[in-house]
């Protein structure tokens, strides 16, 4: 309810009607899983380096239409963050302008429900560009996989603490970890988590 009101309020602030599609009804049983690689963990200061996203339709991960984009940051990437995501300055030489990337991304996700792992952060990163540019925040409904995992898990170990690290969840769900952690790989793996969790009544 509150979300709806909020959305309506933001909708009125949308500065470019071209993006009205974000507020349309979401297609049934479709989701977008996305992940970003950034220069750091502070949405206020840090910038997006790449976005990977993939759609889920029912139980299928539509890898044939995946979204992967590299963004040219406004400043040099620090050594520490290069070590984490292995995206070097040179890798982004041909990266696109952040607002172009945002435009493409918005068209890819449309009004679909967003799914992610620690999605809050990735949403904040997108909003960091979206808010000043269009006057809105991402209006899409959001699903946190680690949240679903936690809730399903906690029923059986009510007092325990639950390890919510990415690889731990993957392993616990018996999912294969493919390739290196980059935006698109993580998006696909998160998609697998989501599909699996969606279909698993209990853990």
């Amino acid at each position, binding site marked *: 309810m509150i979300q709806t009101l909020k959305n309506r309020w933001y909708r009125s602030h949308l500065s470019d009607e071209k993006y009205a599609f974000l507020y349309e009804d979401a297609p049934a049983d479709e989701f977008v899983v996305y992940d970003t690689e950034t220069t750091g963990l502070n949405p206020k200061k840090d910038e997006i380096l790449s976005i990977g996203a993939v759609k889920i339709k029912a139980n*299928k991960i539509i890898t044939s239409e995946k979204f992967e984009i590299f963004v040219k940051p406004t400043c040099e990437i620090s050594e520490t963050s290069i070590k984490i995501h292995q995206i070097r300055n040179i890798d982004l030489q041909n990266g696109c302008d952040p607002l172009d990337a945002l435009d493409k991304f918005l068209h890819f996700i449309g009004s679909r429900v967003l799914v992610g792992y620690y999605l809050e952060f990735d949403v904040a990163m997108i909003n960091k560009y979206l808010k000043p540019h269009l006057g809105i925040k991402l209006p899409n409904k959001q699903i946190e996989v680690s949240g679903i995992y936690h809730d399903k898990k906690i029923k059986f170990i009510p007092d325990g603490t639950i390890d919510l690290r990415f690889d731990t969840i993957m392993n616990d769900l018996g*999912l294969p970890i493919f*390739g290196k952690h980059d935006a698109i*790989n993580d998006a696909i793996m998160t998609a697998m988590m989501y599909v699996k969790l969606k279909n698993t009544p209990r853990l």
Partner: protein
Amino acid sequence: MSLHDQESFLRSIHPFELLGAKDLQNAVASMNIAYYKKDTLLIGPQKSAEFLYIVIKGEVGEYFEKDLLKVYSKSSTFDADALIYEKCENTFIVLEELICFEMTKKDFKKLLDASNDFKNFYIKDLASKIQSAKQKEYTTQMSGFMIARVADTYLHKVCIVDFSTPIMDALKKMEEIKTNCILVQEGDELGIVTDSVLRKHILYENYDKYAAIGPIALKPIISIQSDDFLFNALLSFTKNSIKRIIVKKDDEVIGILEQLDLLSYFANHTYLVAVQIKKASSIEELKQASRDFINIIKKLHAKGTKVEYIAKLISELNEKIYEKLYSMLVPAELAQKACLIVMGSEGRKEQMLKTDQDNALIIQDACDVALFQEVMEQFTSILIDFGFPKCDGNIMVCNPYWRKNTSQYKSEIARWLEAPSGDDYMHLAIFYDSICVAGDSLLLLELKTMIYEGTKNRSIFMANFAKSALLFETPIGMFTNLIVHDNMVDVKKGGIFPIVQGIRSLALEHNITETTTVGRIRQLKKMKIFEEDFSGALIEAFDTLLNLRLKERLHSLEKNRKFQNSINISNLNQLELELLKDSLKIVNKFKSFLTHHFKLNMVG
């Protein structure tokens, strides 16, 4: 999983590595990842296939009605047939929740068109898969003959007459020379007159048989140089659709090669060695001939002759040596009073290179057994000298146990059948495989008849006889993975022995006199013990296993290593691996047939 990771995952799956980089990339870009819960029906007679499924994780079972035929796990793909033939009689059901790639039918078909190798893998079923492997070997088998020269074969003499020679005179000359066509000289040019030319002109066109032969000769003639390859002669026959070709040495005609002779040359390559054995007039000469034939085998192998052919050659020539040696050693008055038999693999003609002697002598009751002692001891030691290894089990004519008269054998066979112990089942088995190579074959027949009679309606005995076929595990796992130890798979225990023993049991039960395993399978098929498809598959499987083992043995021979029954799977190519797996699957199917047929689960 990035595009790159998907690509390498796909590339790790046979036969995707056969695809070009571009095709593979396109395929990867168009795949989706799907998730299916346990018990989901993916493909079935009512649910046509839309995708090629490539398993990332989970298991899928393929069922025919209620029978689980196959389980697909990580890295397996299914079901190409359903996509290619656009129908599917089997059902594919998720056994363990599944994550898989889905490639659309359209994209899959695009890949089939992109690469023939890729296509062949999917298009062909087992029999044709084996056939295509054999095709390859067939080509190499032919090469042994194909490097033979025209001059190596039998050439017919030439009858050359002058242009103006009357036809009748020319025919007379041809008959004198004992050849069957006439060459006609006209200046520098030659023409040919054959039976069909004469028939055409003289019978149909009333050409005067006393007139000059020149005008009816066919020109130009087709010739080949004597040092050219036979292969080229064969091509020339087919290309020009002719039956004979003129053989020249430089410009001189030296003979005529007939198509028939060329074909029989290919068919009877062993003939010359056989003649050499036959003509040997002393043990020394026979030894020489036997050495020669071993050299020929080595040469044939070096030339890439098919292993199966070599095996056949060996058993044929071994038999001839046995026969010849028997006639040389055994005094004429004794020769027909006994019967020399070879048993086991030699009897089945599945002799692989130099394997142990397995022979025995059956002597008429009326004749004194002691008369044969000395000569048979000599027989064994000469064979050892010839290079036939001693039998570890001492199953040789020098051993009195295998040199007895008919009644002694009969009481022994009765004991094998009534109160078998220790090696008795094995003795019965190899004896049942025996064939007579010299002497009076009726002596063997009498004993074999006794065995047929003695095993009639003895289902418990037969079950005990057959059960050793199940003694060893087939080295293939639930999910058609090979079970290997240090890369080695024992094909004898794992496949050859179960087939030989199982077929032998079925053959004995049905009183089949044929001794080769393949021959027995064919007989069993005729008697409708097997389905036609199954007997074919069994023969192919048996053949594949023997071939793989022979290949390994020839390899050891080159390296001077001891023969063994295991094959190193790292020496196999992908196709051979697939064939091995398919063959072992058939072995398993055969084992369950045996269990059911002989009710083997009832005997301990």
